[in-house]
């Protein structure tokens, strides 16, 4: 019960961010489906966003004077918007890839290998 009675801090958010980030990285690493890779990227960006928001929050740390403040939130906003843009382009690329190769397997996209 004492666990639930403690206030959460930046660290807790950071751990969630880390989990999401690492999930995303693993997702990128193991998914052969291009869309899966995309989702991994989304997870990674989201994990980063969690960190930004956590650092910006005025409630989560004892030395609040050093919080990022609104900058963190602004940056996370930009990240969100850029992620949307990135997703649009990535999807377009995937579609193109699919049109050309009839597959979305990223392992098949190795025409530039050494």
């Amino acid at each position: 019960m004492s666990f639930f009675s403690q206030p959460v801090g930046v660290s807790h958010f950071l751990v969630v961010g880390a989990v999401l980030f690492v999930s995303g990285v693993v997702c990128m690493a193991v998914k052969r489906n291009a869309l899966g890779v995309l989702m991994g990227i989304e997870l990674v960006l989201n994990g980063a966003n969690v960190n930004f928001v956590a650092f910006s929050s005025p409630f989560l740390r004892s030395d609040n004077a050093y919080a990022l403040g609104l900058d963190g939130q602004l940056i996370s906003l930009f990240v969100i918007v850029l992620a949307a843009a990135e997703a649009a382009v990535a999807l377009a690329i995937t579609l193109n890839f699919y049109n050309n190769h009839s597959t979305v397997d990223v392992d098949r996209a190795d025409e530039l290998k050494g």
Partner: protein
Amino acid sequence: MAPYLANYLPQWLAYLAVGLVQCVLLLLIPFVGAMFFVWVERKVSARIQDRLGPTRCGGKFGWLQLLADGLKLITKEDLRPKDADSVLFLLAPYVSFCASFTALLALPFSNGWVAQGLDVGVFFVLAVLALEVFGVILAGYASASKWSLFGAMREAAQVVSYEVPLGLCVVVPVLITGEMDLVKIGQMQQGLFTNWLIFHDPFIFITFWVYFTCATASVNRAPFDLAEAESELVAGFHTEYSGFRWLAFYMAEYGSMFAVSGLAAILFFGGWNGPLPVTQLLGLTPEHGALAGWFGNFLGLLNFVFKCVAGVTFMIWVRWTLPRLRIDQVMQVCLKYCTPIAAVMFLGATLWTYFVPGGLVLPSMYAERYVQFSAVEPAAQASPATNVARPGGEPADGHRLSAATRLDSGQGAR
């Protein structure tokens, strides 16, 4: 309400009870609302087509028909195709339903009567309403039927496209009021009906019609109901559904119709404020006692619900009047007409507010206003978001004020 209850109950129980009551009240809208609107739709369509509509079931106007319908649906066999993705198939209707229900959370039904007042209410409602499409897509995919998939794909394309002009339209009232809090937007339109935003300037007047078109499309109603085009796609995304799951989709649809109508009412038609400030004239305001305030708010609620029902009825009227568009025409309406018009209206409203006296505030002036506002009216800044989680009783007013003032200075020091 919850802090008040917490004086008598354990804190968590108080919050839980209040939350439950609010949820139940809100659930009435999709449940009862859906049944009522089905009945309305039948009657209206019948009148439009020079018929009588349901007359047999239940005495006057066949009003028991809606109960009979509901009963029939609940007792129907719950079918599931063999090849369906079972989890998603089961989940999909509830995703849609939850989305449409959650949108109602941030909708103020009267002055301050909102389940969860949000600083960014407009935004929240739009965001959550957009999630409804997930259920549709999942249903379409999980049904393992090409009709369903076609319907879902159409719906996805349509909803995503229409979100652009819809967002642009919604921004216009937000621009004029400078607020995203639905309660505050409603409060600003108090008084005579000329205070309603739709009469603010010619641009927002046009914006309303664009908004309504886009809203109709985004809740997937005729003439934009491509996702369930019976003549081509059997029943679209819910071809394979029956019974209560099908009912969930139905309730989601009517719930979101109600939600977008409510949003329209607040953003353009004064929300809970009547055309004449009757409640103010009669003194039915909180200043004259809690009961008077409560009663005034109740009148407001009736007002608001009337406006929503009018909006939904209007949609029904449209459905039975206009033929269905082709999918390419749907996209054309969105991308070639609605979006440019909305953009131009946005520009026009911006210029109007800038040039007409009392218009738009420049960022720097806004900043000053913000600082003054936060110094003078700190209580207004209290975000209800934390109400749920806040234990303990409500502190004394004086304490709150001083605390807020210190908050301001504390921020300044940073």
